C-alpha cells in the first residue's frame, strides 16, 4: 500500500535524523502529544521554533556586530535558543548553544563569532530536515494513514 510505503520512508528518514543527532527523544515526546484533539501540534511547535530561532539568530548577529558587545544580552539570547531547541529536541543546535555559551562566559568574541556561525549552520540544517519530515507527515495524513510514533530506540 502506498501509505505503508510512505510510513516506512518516514520512519527511515526519522531514524537517520536520530542517528545523526539532529533530533533526540524530546522530538518523539512531541509527537506523542499530537492526537485527534490536537492534530497539528507538532507543526505548530516546529513553526514557532523556526520563528523564534530566526529572530534570536538575527538579534545575535546584530548584537555581535556592535562596537561594544553586550555579552549579557548574548547570554540571554543563547539561553533562549538553548531552551527552545532543547524543548523541541534539536540536539545539535542545543549542543552548539552550549558551546556558544561557554565562549560567551569567557567573553571570547572570536569564539562567539565562530560559534554563532556554527549555530546558524546547525539551525539551517535542522530546519530543512524538519521541514522535509513534516512534509512527509502531511503526505501520510493526506493519504489517510496514521503517523508512526517513534519509540525510544536503544
Amino acid at each position, binding site marked *: 500500500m502506498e501509505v505503508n510505503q510512505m510510513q*516506512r520512508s518516514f*520512519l*527511515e528518514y*526519522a*531514524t537517520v535524523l536520530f542517528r545523526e543527532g539532529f533530533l533526540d*527523544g*524530546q522530538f518523539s*515526546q*512531541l509527537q*506523542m*502529544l499530537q*492526537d*485527534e*484533539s*490536537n492534530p497539528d*501540534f507538532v507543526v*505548530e*511547535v516546529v513553526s*514557532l*521554533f523556526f520563528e*523564534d530561532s530566526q529572530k534570536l539568530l538575527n538579534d545575535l548577529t546584530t548584537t555581535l556586530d556592535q562596537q561594544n558587545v553586550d555579552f549579557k544580552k548574548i*547570554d*540571554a539570547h543563547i*539561553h*533562549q535558543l538553548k*531552551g*527552545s531547541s*532543547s*524543548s*523541541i*529536541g534539536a540536539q545539535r543546535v542545543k549542543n552548539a548553544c552550549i558551546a556558544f555559551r561557554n565562549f560567551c562566559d569567557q567573553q571570547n568574541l572570536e569564539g562567539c563569532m565562530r560559534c554563532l556561525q556554527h549555530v546558524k549552520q546547525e539551525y539551517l540544517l535542522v530546519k530543512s530536515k524538519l521541514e522535509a519530515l513534516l512534509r512527509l507527515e502531511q503526505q501520510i495524513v493526506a493519504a489517510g494513514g*496514521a*503517523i*508512526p*510514533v*517513534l*519509540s525510544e*530506540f536503544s
Partner: protein
Amino acid sequence: MELCNCIEPPWPAGELLMKYQYISDFFIALAYFSIPLELIYFVKKSAVFPYRWVLVQFGAFIVLCGATHLINLWTFTLHTKTVAVVMTTAKVLTAAVSCATALMLVHIIPDLLSVKTRELFLKNKAAELDREMGLIRTQEETGRHVRMLTHEIRSTLDRHTILKTTLVELGRTLGLEECALWMPTRTGLELQLSYTLRHQNPVGFTVPIQLPVINQVFNTNRAVKISPNSPVARLRPAGKYMPGEVVAVRVPLLHLSNFQIHDWPELSTRRYALMVLMLPSDSARQWHVHELELVEVVADQVAVALSHAAILEESMKARDLLMEQNVALDHARREAETAVRARNDFLAVMNHEMRTPMHAIIALSSLLLETELTPEQRLMVETVLKSSNLLSTLINDVLDLSRLEDGSLKLEIGTFSLHTLFRETYNLIKPIASVKKLNFTLSLSPELPEFAIGDEKRLMQVLLNVVGNAVKFTKEGSISVSAFVAKLDSLREFRAPDLISIPSDNHFYLRIEVKDTGLGINPQDLPKLFMKFVQSQPTKNSSGLGLAICKRFVNLMEGHICIESEGLGKGSTAIVIVKLGIPGRSNESKLSFVHKVPRNQVKPAFSGLKVVLMDDNSVGRMVTKGLLVHLGCDVLAVGSGDECVRVINHEHKVVFLDVSMPDVNSFEVAVRIHEKFSKRMDRPLIVALTGNTDRMTKENCRRVGMNGVLLKPVSVDKMRSALSDLLEKGFFVESK
C-alpha cells in the same frame, strides 16, 4: 629246331580268330585312349575333385594299357625286334603303373565310400530339419491364431460377447464341430450349459459339479481329453457316426478379491467354468499337441477377459451406488442447513423476545430498589433482581453457546494491552474478594509483552469467568492470578494435538493460572466440568454454561483450559493457555513501530485539572502546555512572573514555574504566590521546571516551599506520574 622270334600268323587256320582279336585289341586301345580324355574333360569341368593325382595315375595306367594293346596289334604279323622291345617296355611300364594304382586304390576307395555315407547322413539331416521347420511353422500359425483370438476376446468388455467370440473363433481356428461352455451356477453345485457354438442344445441344461470327469479337468490347468460319452460332452444328438475326439479345459473365474495378493492367485476358493471342444465326427482327426496348447492359452485369456468384465461391472455398480449416496447426502446436508437456519432464526427471535421482558424486569426491579421499601420487600425485590440477572446471563450464554457450536462465532481480533486487561479484571474482582475477606493477588511475569493481538472482550470474559468461579467457591483463604508466557514443555504436558505449533516470532502462548484455597473439586467430577449444565456441587447454583463457553472460546483461540484439584477441600487451580499474536514483530522496519495508543485508553486521570504554566520561552511554553493538555489538564500559560501572580486563583491546583529564566527570579514568584493565598487549603501546588540538576537549585526550590522539581525535558510519563503523586501525596520526589 629253329627258334625264330618271328611268329608267323597262321592266317588261314586261325585267321578268323586272329581277325577278331585284332579288331578287339584295336577297340580296346581306342577305349583306353578315350577314357582318360573323357575323364580329363569332365574333371576339368567340375570344380570340386580332390583326387587329381589319382586321376593322373589312372590316366597313365589306362594310357599305357591302351598303348600296350595298340602295340599288340603289330605283333600279330611278323615284327622286328624293335617292336618287341617297345612292346616289352610298354608292358613293363604298364605293369608298374597298374601296381602303383592298385596300391593307391586301397587308400582311396574307403574314402570314396565314406563320402557316400556322409552324403546319406546329410540327406537325413535335411529331412529332419524340414520336419522341424514344418513343426515351427505350425506353432507359429497356432500363435497367430491365439493372438487373433485373444485380440477378439479382449476387444470387448461385455461378458457375453467375450464368451461368444471365444467359442466362435475357436471353432473357426480349430475347425471344431461343437464348442460349449459350462458355467457354475450361483449355488456352485451344478454346471449349467451357458453357451454353445451351434445352438443345438437347450441352454440351461445342468450337470452336477461333482462328477469325476469334471474334477479331473478342474484339477489340472491342461486340456484333458475326455470321453465323448461323458455327460458334459453329450452335446450332439447321438448319430450313426463316430463322434470325434473331445477335449475339455477349465476356465478360471477370477474375482476382484483374488488380485490382492502379489503373485497369481493360487488354488484357494476358486470357481471354474468348463469349456468342451469337439472335433468333427468321422474325420479321423486327432488332437495335436499344439492344438491342445492353443486351447489352454485361450482358456487363460478368457479367464482374464472375464475378470476384466467382472471388474468393470463391479466398478459401474459402485459408481452408481456412490452417485445415489451423493444425492442422499446432498439432500441431508440441505436439510441440516435448513434446520440450522431455522434454529438460528428461532434463537434470534426468541432471544430478542426473551431479552425485552428481562430488561423490563431488571430495570424496574432496580428502580424499585431505589424507592422506600420495608426490609422484607427489599429482600424480595433483591431476590427478584438477582434471579433475573441470572436468567439474563443464562439467555446470553445459550445464544453464545449455540453460535459457538455451529462455528458461526468469530473472534474479534485486535490489538490490546495485556496489562490493562489484567488490571481491569483485578479491579472488577477485588471488591468481591474483599467483601469475602479473601486475599486476592495478581502477578504478571515481566516477560509478558505489553501488547498482544487477540479477542480482548472474549479473553476478558474467560478470565472473569474463571476468576469469578474461584472467588465464588472459596470461603476463606486466597486467590492468586498469575500470568506468564508459556514455555514449550508446559505446552507439551497437555498433550493436546492442536498445540504442536511451536511459538514463533508472530505469536506466543499466554498461560494464566488461577489458584484458590477453596472447596476443591472431586477428581471424578473433573471431566464433567466443561460440559453443559452439569453441576459438580449441587449446593451452589452456578450458571452451568460458563465453563462450557469458556472452553469453546479458548478452543477458538487455539488454546487449552483445564482445572486441577487434589480433591474436596484442597483448593483448585485453573490453567488457561491461549495463543495470542505479537504486534509489530513480523513486517516492520528495524525501528520498532508502536501503534498510536488511542487517547481514550490513556485515561486522563487529571481531566479538567486547572493548572498555570509560566515559561518565558515561547517554544518551551507551547511544548509544556501541549504536554499538560494531552494529560487532560486545563492549562493557562503565561510568559512572565507578574502575569503569573496576577492570573492565578484558587481554582488552579498546580503551578508550573520554569526556574531557568535568567531575568525572572522564579523563586520570588513562588513566594509571592504563597503570599497571595493565605489559606493553606487554596494554595496551589508549585512545581519547578528546570534544566539544572545541581543541589543548589533543589535547595532553593525547597526553601521557597515548592512542592516538586521536574527536570527538563519532561516526558509524558514523567509528567503523568509526577502529577499523580503530587495530587495523591501533595509532593513528589523526582526519580530519574
